[in-house]
Every structure is written in C-alpha cells, then in structure tokens.
C-alpha cells in the first residue's frame, strides 16, 4: 500500500471566488484513518483555511456528512482504505447551498422542522410517575428515533433536489417516530402537513434516502407506511359519513 493518498477537496471561498474550485492535498495513507482524519490532518498540518463540520468522530453527531467519491456519507465512517489508491474526491453535500468549502446551509431543514411537531403531543397532562411503555410499543417507533439529522438522506433524494418545498425523508420519518409512539396523540395534527402536496405525496419512492442513511432508519419505508395510512383516511373520508370517519 502506498504511503500517501490524495484528497481532491472542493473549495469555495465566497470572498475570493465565484465558483467552487478543487484543491488537492497529499496526506499519509493510514489503515485506521477515516476521511475525516485525513481532513483534520489537512486542517492541522497543511492548510488551516479549509472549512468543514465535525464533532464526535463516531457517527453519533451527524455533523460530518459530505459527498465522498459521489456518495453522501459520514466522513467519520468512511475509511481511506476503502477508497485506495485514490484520489478521494471530497465535496459538500448535494442539494444544499454551500456556505464555504464543505459547509452547507441547513436553514431550510431547520425552518421545516417544527411543522411536523417532533415532540409528544398529549391529550391530557402527563402522569406524575414514569410513562410506562411495553417493549412492543417501543419497537414500533424506535427505528425512526435513531435519526441523527445528518442530512445524507436529503443529499441523496432526487426529489428534494428538484422540489425545495418537499418536507423530505428525515422529517417524515421523524413525524412517524412520534405518530407511532403510544404516548403521542398528535397524529391528527400532523396529518395536515404530512398529507399536503409537499409532504408524503411528493416522494416518488426512489429509495436512495434509505440507502444513504447511516443509522438504518429507512425513511423510504416510513413514507410508504404513512402513505397507506393517509390513503386509508382519504378513502374513509370519501365513503363514511362525517361522524364515523
């Protein structure tokens, strides 16, 4: 194995250039290094002006999502050995405006976040003691609660790239996380936003979101599951008298 590997990093410094450029860095090729380790080597030793987000280095915080050799992935989970002999192309996440280098603008997601009410909506005041759930009730939503908001599913979703109003995979999965929670009573309130044109019906089931998800959340599955629920409610509303819907 060679001693070094080249990172081809997309650079964009709005104060000095109008279009993104590419800069190559030769870094040590170490078996235990991820692309994030390589970028940190660049930042610490070669070029302190390179900007990128990172925090936990262990696939928990969801900060270091990037496009590496064309795929949306977490840089901290992408080993250099898997891209040997390189060069390794490192770009910002697709479908988002770029602020600087590998740092993208997430305002659109943050603005949409409260619309799906990602909290427990209660009909009555919570009990004084613990809110007990059976293991089966936890299993219902646990998968969807694993999301770390890394935005890889948005970068992978071709519909989000075309339709900026689309709620997107992570937010619909997040809504399902609460809809399926036995302690929550907000599913009727979420129906309005989820069954809007920009909600589930914009999804064309490409399925790339679930492929990109580093936590196995399966947002595409969450969307299809909710489509069935929303379609059943529509049929009921068309067939049943108002009082029995």
């Amino acid at each position, binding site marked *: 194995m060679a001693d070094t590997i080249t990172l081809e990093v997309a650079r964009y410094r709005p104060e000095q250039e109008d279009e993104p450029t590419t800069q190559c860095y030769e870094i040590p090729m170490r078996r235990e290094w991820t692309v994030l380790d390589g970028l940190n080597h660049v930042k610490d030793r070669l070029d302190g002006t390179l900007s990128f987000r990172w925090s936990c280095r262990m696939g928990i915080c969801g900060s270091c999502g990037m496009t590496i050799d064309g795929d949306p992935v977490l840089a901290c989970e992408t080993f250099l050995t898997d891209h040997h002999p390189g060069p390794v192309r490192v770009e910002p996440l697709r479908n988002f405006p770029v602020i600087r280098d590998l740092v993208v603008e997430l305002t659109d997601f943050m603005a949409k976040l409260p619309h799906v009410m990602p909290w427990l909506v209660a009909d009555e005041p919570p009990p004084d003691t613990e809110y007990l759930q059976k293991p089966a009730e936890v299993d219902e939503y646990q998968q969807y609660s694993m999301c770390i908001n890394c935005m890889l599913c948005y970068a992978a979703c071709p519909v989000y790239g075309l339709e900026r109003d689309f709620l997107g995979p992570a937010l619909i999965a997040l809504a399902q996380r609460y809809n399926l929670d036995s302690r929550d009573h907000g599913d009727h309130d979420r129906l309005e936003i989820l069954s809007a044109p920009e909600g589930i019906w914009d999804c064309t089931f490409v399925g790339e979101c679930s492929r990109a998800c580093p936590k196995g959340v399966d947002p595409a599955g969450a969307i299809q599951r909710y489509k069935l629920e929303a379609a059943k409610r*529509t049929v009921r509303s068309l067939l049943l008298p108002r009082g029995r819907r």
Partner: protein
Amino acid sequence: MTVVRRPVEPLLWLAFSAGGVLAALLVPALLLLFGVAFPLGWLPAPGYPHLDAVVRHPLVRLVLFALCVLALFHAAHRLRYTVRDGLQLRRLSGLIDASCYGAALAGSAAAGYLLLAAG
C-alpha cells in the same frame, strides 16, 4: 408552507400500489402458464372451449378487468414520475399527467370492451 389537500393523489397512489401488488402476483403466474408451461408441454394445455368457459365466468372477468385497470394505472403513475422528474419536465406536469392517466383510462376502457365482447 401551504397546506392544500389533494384528495386525488392518495387514490392514484392506492391504484398504483394495488396494481403493483396484483401485477407482481398474477402476471408472472399467467406468463409462466401461458407463455412457457403450456407451449412447451410441461402441463396439459386447456382446450379453447374450456378457457372460453373460464373467461365467461363473471368473477374471472372481474379479476382480469381489475388486473388490467390497476396494472395500467400502476404503469401510468410510474411513467408520470419518470418522465416528469427523470427528464426534468415539471413545467409540463399537467400535460404529462393527462397523457399518462389518459392512456391508462383508454387502456382500461379497451380492456373492459374486450372482456365484455368476449361474452
């Protein structure tokens, strides 16, 4: 964010979904029987009078009609998104929708006519 109900979309999706399931279950079986097993003599082929009697049964006609209609709407729904998003023709959404679902409706009418004419 505007919240506008689009009640036709859930119904189109139901037809797409049901069409996909039905087509996946029935079409391979029909193809295997009539396209491979009977022509190659793996199974004794039913005679024309027998098949004619089967198709004349109202329940069989209903199932075949449902299969044709739902499979056509499944194809229309998929084609609509493939053309609209794949070719990036969102500005022609109305025309694409009308063409795809219109073709499915025309195909359904043709299937209905043929099944009725068989009687």
